[in-house]
């Protein structure tokens, strides 16, 4: 369906004629990313709290998360796809992809959340105790909110990491924009690869901006203090 032969650096007509497919790949890329970061967050925050509270939990949690982080993504897809029946091809490779992608977010998110909890000023915690907060209430209403800037920093790193890794899932039949990349490679044509590359970067940039915006909403005091400083 494409005119091959000459391989220009970039051909717009590819984008216009294939827009439907590009859009579908983009949507899949976003779905794979959102699901991985969301599940990663839901798992990481409680684990981080446990690791922060109980020294016994810390070593195994960080051990497992670091191990998952070090395993090469392609290797992890290969191993998980071998364990999950039919895990090398869609639809079951969705599970393969998500388990691996979530695995990569864990170390980043747990590390940052623990760092954030450690950075809570002891004054704030003592004030909470003095006001009669139970340890759980203090955790939910003082410690975790004050750790938010660190948690958001982790979310930003995790999200951009996952957006990059999703392309590799093209080798197990998914890939989002990675589909454009492998397609371009297979037919020896630059344009689809550049489409995949540029849209991945734009996606990562937009996701980062959204997270910065969300952080402003979730950490309003950093903004007020800046405004106060500007005003004075």
């Amino acid at each position, binding site marked *: 369906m494409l005119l091959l032969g000459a391989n220009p650096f970039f051909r717009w007509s590819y984008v216009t004629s294939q827009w439907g497919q590009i859009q579908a790949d983009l949507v899949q890329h976003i779905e794979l990313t959102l699901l991985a970061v969301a599940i990663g967050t839901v798992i990481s925050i409680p684990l981080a709290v446990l690791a922060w509270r109980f020294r016994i939990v810390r070593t195994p949690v960080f051990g497992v998360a670091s191990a998952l982080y070090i395993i090469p993504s392609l*290797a992890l897809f290969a191993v998980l*796809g*071998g364990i999950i029946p039919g895990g090398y091809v869609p639809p079951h490779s969705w599970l393969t992809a998500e388990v691996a992608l979530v695995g990569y977010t864990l170390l980043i998110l747990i590390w940052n959340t623990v760092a954030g909890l450690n950075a809570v000023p002891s004054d704030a915690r003592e004030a909470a105790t003095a006001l009669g907060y139970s340890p759980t209430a203090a955790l939910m209403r003082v410690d975790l909110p004050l750790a938010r800037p660190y948690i958001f920093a982790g979310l930003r790193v995790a999200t951009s990491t996952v957006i990059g890794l999703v*392309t590799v899932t093209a080798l197990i039949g998914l890939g989002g924009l990675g589909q454009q990349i492998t397609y371009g490679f297979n037919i020896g044509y630059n344009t689809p690869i550049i489409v995949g590359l540029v849209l*991945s970067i734009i996606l990562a940039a937009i996701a980062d901006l959204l997270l910065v915006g969300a952080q402003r909403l979730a950490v309003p005091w950093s903004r007020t203090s800046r405004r106060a400083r500007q005003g004075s």
Partner: protein
Amino acid sequence: MSFFDRLFHWFTSSANWSGSNGIPELFWRQLELSAVVVVTALIIGGGLGVVLGHTGRGGLVAVNAANAFRAVPTLALLTLLAIQPSISLKWGGFLASWIALTALAIPPILTNTFVGMREVDADVREAAKAVGLTGGQVLRRVEAPLAAPFVMAGVRTAAIEVVATSTLAAFVSYSDLGTYVISGLNTQNTVLSVAGALLVGVMAGVVALSLGLITRAVTPIPLRSRVRARTLTAGTAAR
């Protein structure tokens, strides 16, 4: 035969231990590629980080640019380079893999080197100048040893990433351990993929451990316990 029996059989079959597609050859090729890439990235990223950190100018711009570069999917860079006729024919996929993976390895090394150079206490630097050391001597005898653990944290992060990602080089016809993983995925041969994955895992572990030892060796003795916590953070932020 169960899966583990077949895996065991694969590892113990002598055919897999010899020839151009044997384990030793492919293991070596991946290690070779990774080493060349990390050394290149150390020269470029480390050199740039030292210069920027020493002069203290333009560093933030470079660090931000390096971070933005992280969003570039390696697969895209690798395939794009591999289909350019002038590159694809060079050394059976080595050149394309070398360039693409070096681009991946520079950001963590550059960032960590720059941070390490800026972390050097300004008083220490002043004191070194006050006792009469020249700019070059300050760099060699004060800044470099103090920044070394940070640089090594960057090298370690980059090296693990490179070992992991060099499996993708097999996708653009540079045969290494990724060849097992990818042909296993293509033929739905689970044993082959998992065997390749295990071998890459072994390599990543060995590289991480040996670089950990080198980091310890280049860290000035009084700093050994203090620096570890901080370099860990610097390393984590990098992938």
